Structure formats: C-alpha cells, structure tokens
C-alpha cells in the first residue's frame, strides 16, 4: 500500500463511523452528502491532527481542505511534505 492509499484508507475508516451504509469514494463531497455537519468540523480537525501528527493551522481550515477523502489526503500530504502531494487530485 503506497503512502497516499494508506492515508486515504485511514481517512475513510474514520469517516465511515459517520455513515454505516455508504461506501464513500475518495472524491465524494462529504458536506454535500450531509454526513458531516458543523458540529463535527473540529472533530475532523482533531482526527487529522492526531492520526497524522500534524498541526492544522488557521489557514488550513478552509472547508475545501476537508471536503473529501482526497482533499484531506492532499492537506496531510502538504503538511507532511510527503510524496503524495504530487498525486492526482
């Protein structure tokens, strides 16, 4: 499993707690699907910080960075400087 796939798998596993009967695709908009509301926004931030050991800065809190598995994975890659940054969006 490469780095991006591993990151996305962890994100998917976390997000799967919010919905049991939907197989979330990497590019799907979780806000549009209604799975994540504003109550859970900081929970998502806490997950990303703890799971990937990064500090989400104020500038990172654009909802677009948390809109999909792919977007979150991209944020993690940028924050960690991992090769996944170059992977397709």
């Amino acid at each position, binding site marked *: 499993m490469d780095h991006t796939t591993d990151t996305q798998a962890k994100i998917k596993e*976390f997000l799967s*707690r*919010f919905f049991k009967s939907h197989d979330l695709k990497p590019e799907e908009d979780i806000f549009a699907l209604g799975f994540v*509301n*504003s*109550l*859970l*926004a*900081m*929970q*998502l*931030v*806490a*997950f990303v*910080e*703890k799971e990937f050991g990064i500090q989400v800065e*104020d*500038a990172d*809190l*654009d*909802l677009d960075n948390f809109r999909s598995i792919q977007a979150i994975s991209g944020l993690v890659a940028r924050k960690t400087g991992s090769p996944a940054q170059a992977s397709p969006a």
Partner: protein
Amino acid sequence: MNLELTAEQRAVRDEARAFVTAEVAPHADRWDREEAVPGELIDQLRARGYLGSLLPAELGGRGLDMISYGLLTEEIGRGCSSVRSLLTVHDMAVRAIERFGDPAAKERFLPALARGAILGAFALSEPNAGSDANSVETTAVSEGDGGGWVLTGRKKWTTFGQIADLFLVFARVESAGGYQPTVFLLERDTPGLTVRPLRGITGTRASLLAELEIEGCRIPAAHRVGRIGSGVSHVASYTLEQGRYSVACGAVGLGQACLDASFAYATERHQFGVPLIRHQLVSAMITDMIVGVRAARLLCLRAGWLRASRDPAAGAETMAAKYFASVMAAKAANDAVQIHGANGCSEEFPVGRYLRDAKVLEIIEGSTQIQQISIPRFPFAEL
C-alpha cells in the same frame, strides 16, 4: 484510560480543595446575595494561577494538564458556581485565542490572560440568539484591505461582562454568498462599547452578568479570531467544548456539595425519633446523589483524558459529561432542598443556592436539550 490520578494531579486537587473550603465556600452565600464575586477573591485566584491555568509556564500560566484542570474546576464548583463560571469563560477566551488567534493577538493577550492580569469573557448570546449560534445579529464590517473591522450589535448574558477586559465577540460578516459567522476580540476600553450590569438572575447570581451595547466599535485586523466564516463550525465548537468540560466538572462539584450538605443534615437532624437518614426515602435520595456524583466524575475523567490525548471523540464525550453532570446536579440540588425541608428554602442553608445554580448549569454552554439533540449525531466507536 487510566483512572488513577498522578501525585501532581492529587496535589492540585488537594490544594484547590483546601482553598475552596477556607476561602470560597464560607462566603458564597453572601456573594450570591450581593450579586458579586469580590475583587479580593479574584486576586486570590490570580495569585494561585487559577486564571488561565491551562496555558504553559513560559506564557505565565500554570501549565495544568486537562485532568488537573477538571479537578480544580470541580473543587471551585463545589464552593461557588459563580466563581467557577469566571474560570469557565476566562479559559474559553484563552483557548480561542491560543488556537485561532492572530500571532499579534496571541503575543499581546495570552501572557496577560495567563497571569489573570486581564479577564476574558465569551460574548455569543444576544437578545434574539442563544442556542442558535448561527443567528447572531451583531455585524462585523471590514474597513478594507489591511484595515480593521467595525462591530455593531448587542450581546446579552455575558458572564463576568461587568468586569471583563477582553470579549470574544461572535458576529456576522456579510458577503455575496450570505453572512458568515466570525469571531473577533473586543477590548473593554474600545470607544462605542457600553457595558450594562444584569441583575436579579436566578442562579450563579454573583457572576457579574452584563449586556454589551456595541455601537460602531473599530478594532484592528489582528483582532479577528479564526477564518471568516469559521465562527460557529470551528471557533465556537472548540471553545464551547472547553466550556462544557469546565461546566461538567463544576457540576460534579456542585453535586458533591449537595451530597455533603444532605448527608450532614440527614445525619444530624432527627424526626420520628431517628436521624433522617434512617428513613428509607431520604436514604434513597442520598444514594442517588452518591451514585450520580461518582458517575458524573467518571464521565468527566474520561472526557478529560480524551481531551488531553487530543482524541477526536473528546467533543462527543465532553458533551455527554456535561449533559449527565448538569442533569445530575439539578436532581441532587432538588433533592437536597427536599431533604432540608423548610430549612432548605431559607437562606440559612446553602442548598437553595445550589438549586438555583444547578438550574443554570442545565442551560449554559449548550442546554440539556441541545446536548440531547447533538449527542446522537456523533459516532461512538466504543462505549
């Protein structure tokens, strides 16, 4: 989850317990009647590092861990819910600035907040906005690129607003796509800000509530806290979690105070030839208090432990702790008055104050009903 307190945590609890027993609890009824926590007591809190206690030592704080903070708050809450509410709102302001503040605002305000040299307050509620935080009517208008902001509106029920130096103000920023809830810092001496005391509150009467009239208050750009539009989703969410933890732990303390008072009274007072506690219906009420306090304390410890480890489940568990502890405290206080009978309805005993304060705990930092709506929305990976 480790349920054993460390030596340092026990030391914080024991120190706070001794302080509250000597300096807070004996005076709380008087402060309640006078509707004010005195400045001398705030000086003592400041000297002990109880204001801004979560901030690290390098900023001037006490650097308490989350469990120790909860134990401190429980002890303060045992003595006086109004004093506890000062810690609650001050630390909510601290946490918001620490996490979301502009570097210049952090540098300017955090050391002063850590020392308690200035007091912070949380200004979200308005005459027409309470539980629905998205509906605030206070506006923030940008003065243009590089410029500051102009705040206009009214805030109500601002705890310790009568003496706070720095307000965390929730406002709406109008944009093409609608309004965006955003948070700002407003200093007390800002021209256009008028602070009016609110008196005659049912509970936490000494918490110096105020109404804020904000008329075209100009503030610098660095006083914006968090991104535009993040006011509810991130800043309020994060800050209210801190507040809920504080209120939950304070509710445990209030429940303990109800238990202590009720047990003492039921042991000393005799009716029908035996102590009250020998009557089974009285004993049942005290048993409910014992079990309720213990259960709420465990929920608070779990929430504190999750918060300390920055676990994503901390938000949901803190809500659960706040919900249970505040409901428990309200029942315990109601039963405490019942056990005290007519004495419980007089000013000679503190349980009437406990009941009035407990009611407030079911309303602030997300009402009982808001918790009941919100808690099931979180996934509980494990129980």
